[in-house]
């Protein structure tokens, strides 16, 4: 078998567009997903009983079903209920819901490990429950679970590769489209693999750098 990477690289515009989409989807899903995760973690710790049940059901539903099924449900299933979404919006929603559920569960572990005395000390300083949560409980919790969260964000980034199934033009979609035209499957996927690997390594470094600076201090 002879390799011809030129046949794939000639479509570099498609690959670049795919790369931009993958990064964009991941960035939006990470920001909103973490907000969802923090919100749900707050509800789990302080919300009313019904709210806690709803959040618990959401987390279990997402964590116990495959991502691609969630994606297909949002894109192919919801139109039956009159909710029409573009492929890109459907992909972002699926990724946000996914990361939101996992980060809720990951943050819960960090929050539960908060020493009781720390919370009592904060309460004795007359901080409101929300202030206690945001300033006393959350930052050290983030610090405890940051490596797990970073891994989860990378999993979501890699998981975005299935969004090509609903015609979102991300990186895997680009590789698949190129190989379906020139039949250079090996070369196309080797390139996609290398790009994903590079992205994952860079993203991990970025998050490991950003975490101490913006979320919890060193």
């Amino acid at each position, binding site marked *: 078998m002879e390799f011809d990477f030129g046949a794939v690289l000639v479509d570099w515009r498609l690959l670049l567009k795919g790369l931009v989409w993958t990064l964009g989807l991941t960035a939006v899903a990470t920001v909103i997903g973490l907000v969802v995760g923090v919100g749900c973690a707050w509800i789990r710790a302080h919300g009313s009983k019904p709210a806690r049940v709803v959040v618990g059901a959401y987390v279990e539903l997402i964590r116990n079903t495959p991502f691609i099924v969630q994606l297909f449900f949002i894109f192919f299933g919801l139109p039956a209920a009159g909710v029409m979404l573009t492929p890109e919006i459907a992909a972002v929603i699926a990724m946000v819901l996914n990361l939101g559920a996992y980060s809720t569960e990951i943050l819960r572990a960090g929050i539960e490990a908060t020493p009781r005395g720390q919370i009592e000390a904060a309460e004795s300083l007359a901080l409101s429950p929300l202030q206690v949560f945001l300033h006393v409980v959350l930052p050290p919790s983030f610090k405890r679970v940051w490596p797990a969260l970073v891994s989860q964000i990378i999993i979501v980034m890699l998981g975005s590769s299935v969004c090509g199934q609903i015609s979102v033009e991300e990186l895997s979609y680009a590789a698949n489209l190129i190989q379906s035209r020139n*039949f250079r499957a090996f070369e196309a996927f080797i390139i996609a693999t290398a790009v994903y690997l590079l992205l994952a390594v860079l993203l991990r470094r970025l998050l490991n750098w950003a975490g101490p600076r913006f979320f919890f201090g060193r």
Partner: protein
Amino acid sequence: MRVALAVVRSRRVALTIFAALPLLAAAGAAQAQSALDAITKSKTIKIAVPTDYPPYGFVDTSMKPQGYDIEMAELIAAKLGVKLQLVPVSSANRIPYLQTKKADLVISTLGKNPEREKVIDFTAAYAPFFQGVFGPKSMAVKSFADLGGKTVGVTRGAMEDQELGKVAPANTDYKRFEDNNATVAAFVSGQTQLVAMSGAVAAEMIRKNPQLGAEYKLTIKDSPCFIGIAKGDDALKAKLNEIIGAARRDGTLDKMSLKWLGKPAGELPL
């Protein structure tokens, strides 16, 4: 200590694999003669067929593959006097399956075009086939120019994906899906305004979803199906053409076509 041992062992395994690579390459080179020899030697033929493409290849309620392509595969195995092993493939991966020798032949509604002829060889045609654009009756689509600005669902890697780009205006909004079922699902759920696919699949879709009010709009291409084989395997090609030619003359192809597609095969190109 145990961990260290495991590391050493896995490193040794990796080394063995790397050391074996040149041997594998040599084996690949030695295998350059006809797949026909291998087939008669192992008494088994591996044929790639669709399982998501009624009426050419689909799985019935008893989970058994059936359809025009499957019957063709059975016919070829019977004529060669070997055991048939079906390999399910999708539109996007059927040619890689052939290139990587996961299948000896591809009988999967494969149309012939110059791009494909660069990488694989084709036998004579074995089945009729056409691709078209389909959409709701309420939408006026008289020519390819009318596709501009509309969303059209296509299956990635299928003939209509490649051919439509040549005739439709540049501002046509393509939505590409992995297999026919996803393309159909996107159109049925209203995610695309139009859909480009084979006439046979579209007929099935319209029959099952009368509420869509969908109809035939345009013909993209008449492209009969050919059997795909590895490039340069002339012995296999000659043998298969002999079988197809005989089936055409004795009416077997017409009978199969009547059964699955509702009309005789008619004149097919060589």
